[in-house]
C-alpha cells in the first residue's frame, strides 16, 4: 500500500486530501501541520511521496524541501508542492527547485489521487512496484 505524507498548516486541506486519497486510492495517509513536523515524520516513516503546501508559517514549503534534499535519508522521496498560486513565474520558480511536480489548490478531491499518480507514474490502486532484481 502506498503511503503519502501530507504537510499543510491548514486543517481543511489535510483532512480533505487525506480522506479523498484514502477513499479513492486506498492509500495510507500521514499528516503534518508544519515543515519541521513533516521532516520528522518523513524521516521515521519513509513515505512513498510527500504532498506539501508552499505557504506555511515559520518554514515554508520550498525551504522545507531544500532541507529535505540535504538529508540523505529522505532526499529520495518524491515531493509534490501544493500551491494556490497559478502565475507562470511561480510555476517556473517551484519547478526550478527540483520538486517532482506542482498541484494547484483548490484541488478536486475526486481526482487528486489520479493527478498524483499521473505525475509520479503510478497506477491508482496498484501495489508498490516490485524491487529491482539483484544483479548477477
Amino acid at each position: 500500500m502506498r503511503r503519502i505524507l501530507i504537510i499543510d498548516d491548514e486543517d481543511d486541506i489535510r483532512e480533505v486530501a487525506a480522506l479523498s486519497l484514502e477513499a479513492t486510492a486506498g492509500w495510507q495517509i500521514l499528516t503534518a501541520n508544519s515543515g519541521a513536523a513533516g521532516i520528522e515524520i518523513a524521516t521515521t516513516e519513509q513515505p512513498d511521496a510527500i504532498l506539501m503546501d508552499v505557504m506555511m508559517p515559520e518554514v515554508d514549503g520550498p525551504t522545507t524541501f531544500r532541507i529535505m534534499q540535504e538529508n540523505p535519508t529522505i532526499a529520495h522521496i518524491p515531493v509534490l508542492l501544493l500551491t494556490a498560486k497559478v502565475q507562470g513565474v511561480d510555476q517556473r520558480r517551484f519547478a526550478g527547485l527540483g520538486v517532482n511536480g506542482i498541484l494547484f489548490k483548490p484541488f478536486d478531491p475526486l481526482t487528486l489521487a489520479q493527478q498524483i499518480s499521473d505525475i509520479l507514474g503510478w497506477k491508482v490502486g496498484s501495489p508498490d512496484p516490485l524491487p529491482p532484481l539483484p544483479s548477477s
Partner: protein
Amino acid sequence: MNKKTEAKVDDLIAGLWKKGLPSLRERLDLLDRAAAEASAGAIAEATRAEAHSIAHKLAGNLGMFGYPQGSEVASKIEHICKAPTPEGLASLAALAKQLRKSLAPDI
C-alpha cells in the same frame, strides 16, 4: 472511479464542510471587519495581515468543498490584502459581500 466511491467522498467532504462552518463564519467576520476598516480609510496592519492569511486559505480550500466561485473571490481579496492600493481597499467591502453570497445558503 465508481459511483459508490464518489458518493462516499462527497459525503465525507460534506461532513467536513458542516464541521468547519463555525470556523468559516469567524473567518468571514474577520474579512468583513477588514473591509469595514478599509472603507473607513484606516485598515490596521495586523488586520490586513490576518485578512490576507485568511483569504489565502479560503482561496485554497473553498473550491474543494464545491465552491469554486468562493475561491475566486477569496483570491481577489488575498491579492488586494497582499499589495493594497486605495482602489483595491475600496473594493474589499463589495468582495466580502460577494464572498458570502457565493457560499449561500450555508452562510
